[in-house]
């Protein structure tokens, strides 16, 4: 704890900004990824494979490709702003939200919904009382993975956000800046903090992942 007392206000600013970015990205992605994952899980359209490929693209593409096109796209609008790096993060982490939800919707299947519908439950009712509880594990894993992945983002943010303190200088970028300034002590403190957080998050994720889908659904 003593080492963290040595952090400068600019370090805390970056920590706050990073949490804010990860939080906003997680909320936006849960809203955006749910309908996409739903469609992927239940549609029989021939476009499914193509949509699935597009969603998985950020896993394969180097951050430079995303960063390059996003910079051109957002140039003189959202480039170098907080909104800009939120847009970048949402695209970059899209597969981390869609894939666990897709998996969890598929495991649930149509059956529970058909039963609910036959009992007269409306769409929103079905979602709230059937999908949310049954697929809670999927939502938690998606949210945790997106949050964690955004904490670790670097290349895209550096390209479309630069390194503007209080606006786009998130932790990963600040650590890079500290190493350039040869400020190794600050770089160590922040890096060790990130390692601890990453470890914690991954333990939470794997702790849940190892349970079977049925247990995930029925736990209270």
């Amino acid at each position, binding site marked *: 704890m003593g080492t963290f007392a040595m952090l400068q206000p600019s370090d805390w600013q970056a920590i706050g900004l990073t949490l804010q970015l990860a939080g906003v990205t997680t909320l936006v992605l849960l809203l955006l990824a749910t309908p996409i994952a739903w469609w992927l899980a239940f549609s029989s359209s021939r476009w499914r494979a193509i949509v699935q490929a597009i969603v998985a693209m950020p896993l394969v593409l180097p951050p430079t490709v995303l960063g390059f096109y996003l910079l051109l796209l957002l140039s003189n609008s959202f480039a170098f702003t907080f909104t800009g790096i939120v847009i970048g993060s949402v695209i970059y982490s899209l597969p981390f939200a869609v894939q666990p939800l897709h998996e969890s919707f598929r495991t649930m299947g149509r059956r529970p919904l058909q039963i609910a519908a036959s009992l007269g439950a409306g769409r929103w009712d079905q979602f709230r009382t059937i999908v949310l509880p049954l697929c809670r594990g999927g939502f938690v894993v998606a949210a945790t993975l997106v949050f964690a992945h955004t904490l670790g983002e670097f290349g895209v943010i550096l390209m479309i956000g*630069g390194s503007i303190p209080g606006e786009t200088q998130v932790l990963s970028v600040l650590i890079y800046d500290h190493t350039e300034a040869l400020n190794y002590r600050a770089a160590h403190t922040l890096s060790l903090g990130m390692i601890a957080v990453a470890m914690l998050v991954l333990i939470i994720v794997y702790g849940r992942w190892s349970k079977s889908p049925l247990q995930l659904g029925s736990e209270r």
Partner: protein
Amino acid sequence: MMYRLAALVFALLALFANSSALAKETVHIAAASSLRGPLEIIVGNFETQHPEYEVHISYAASGKLVAQVQHGAPYGLVLAAEPDYLEELHARQLTLSAPQHFSYGQLVLWHPQQHGDALDILRDAKRIALAQPRHAPYGKIAMRYLEQEFPDTDFTGRLVYGENVAQAAHRVYAGAVPLGFVALSQMLQLKIPESDYSVLTSVEPLPQAMALTKQAQSGARLLYSALLEDAAQQVLTDYGYIRYVAAE
């Protein structure tokens, strides 16, 4: 679990949204990586004298900063390690005036692991760190120096490029590369003993130049004037910069 997580995220967001809403006017400026040492002091003094401003500095290679401005980065003032990139901005009408020189920076060879003549050390060097010549002024003059002093030697394969001069220095500092072309200001900032580096005077010093951009507010303008005043000029000289003398 979901609700608790969401509540926690919201609480954090609210906390940080409030804490960042300070009354001070934020001044975003961009500076060449080599200027970090003196600029931290100059800006620190500026903020003491003008407590109504909070200056945020982004450091990168001069060429990168200029590219960022072209894409709409919010810097009111750009300090570059050479005037060319700013001329480019000026030609695109993104600055308020032609680049203003404010001092001259010198190239050094940092060779902490061996002492002696820079030319001898370079001749036998296996790896040499330098900044990427395409967008970093100190990398550009390092290449010019090598071509000038060793016209018949091909250094390709021995050169290790950093994104900017701070990255080049970082490689040498960490011991990953035995020697590197860096800025004199960095040696003075790190208090490196004089025997560990050689000032390369056979290449022209780099005119450090600045320009206000279209986004410049009062804070950026004040800082621009402050950089030409005696106090700031003294700090720059302390960091090995050659003083700027206004042409009559």
